[in-house]
């Protein structure tokens, strides 16, 4: 059971996340999960595209959407993607403290993204009376963006759990895959957001 002891830099392989069979399995498993998520979000995007003009007399996307806020949110999330890469960089260099630090930053960026999203939703609801129930467009909008937001929330919860869990233990071959799969998941959230801001906000602004 040697693999649970914290490893010193000497014995730690360069890719600790894939050094054990469990690690390899987790790595593949998460990638496959993301493959499935691709179709999952495609179904939501498809639904949104089909319903984006079904406003039932309510406000349209052109009237409501503001680009500034979305731009800030985008930059936040993109940056959090970079910080998580940076954390993985430190993992490869076996610098546990720095890894935790940068993951912390990632989490904070994610939280601020969520905060802005909630603010945005509140803004549409109070200022435009635009809700989940107003029209098919409303349902599709909140569901698509909300599903993404839900993924962010879940990601943050996951991050917090592994960070606290391993704070005292340091990096080892048992938890390295957990960190790594988290970072993959987090990137994927960013991938989805790229399409959200493109399809929902930018295209919504165009027509």
């Amino acid at each position: 059971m040697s693999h649970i002891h914290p490893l010193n830099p000497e014995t730690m392989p360069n890719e600790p996340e894939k050094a054990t069979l469990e690690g390899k399995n987790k790595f593949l498993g998460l990638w496959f999960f993301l493959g499935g998520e691709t179709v999952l979000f495609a179904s939501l995007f498809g639904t949104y595209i089909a319903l984006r003009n079904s406003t039932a007399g309510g406000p349209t996307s052109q009237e409501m959407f503001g680009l500034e806020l979305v731009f800030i949110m985008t930059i936040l999330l993109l940056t959090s993607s970079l910080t998580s890469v940076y954390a993985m960089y430190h993992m490869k260099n076996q610098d546990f403290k720095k890894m935790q630090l940068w993951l912390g930053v990632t989490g904070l960026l994610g939280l601020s993204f969520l905060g802005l999203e909630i603010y945005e939703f509140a803004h549409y609801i109070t200022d435009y009376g635009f809700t989940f129930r107003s029209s098919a467009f409303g349902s599709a909008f909140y569901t698509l963006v909300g599903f993404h937001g839900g993924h962010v929330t879940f990601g943050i919860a996951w991050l917090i759990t592994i960070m606290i869990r391993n704070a005292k233990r340091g990096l080892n071959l048992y938890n390295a895959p957990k960190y790594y799969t988290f970072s993959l998941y987090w990137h994927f959230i960013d991938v989805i957001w790229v399409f959200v801001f493109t399809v929902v906000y930018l295209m919504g602004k165009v027509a």
Partner: protein
Amino acid sequence: MENTNSDKIRAYQKQKNKEEMQKHLISFGLMIVLTIIAFVIVATGIMDKMFVIPVLVILAAIQVAFQFYYFMHMKDKGHEMPATMIYGGVWGALLTLAGLGVISWW
């Protein structure tokens, strides 16, 4: 463990990791640029409506390719299966989008 050889390997790995990180920084920079371009196109309305949507989609696709290939290491060895699955997913996604986006209106 007092093996100098392993130290060398370490050092070499560190160097490689660093280079890798620099690549990541560059791709991050590019992603930000792509994002800005996309937002600017829409905010200023300089482009003809006909072209905007395809251009936006292409920009998004490039950006996503960066995420996958650099940030998520899909370019590296040992990622054949992940790549297959993601492409499978993308294929499924395209069909779904075609189904819902195009032929639910007739």
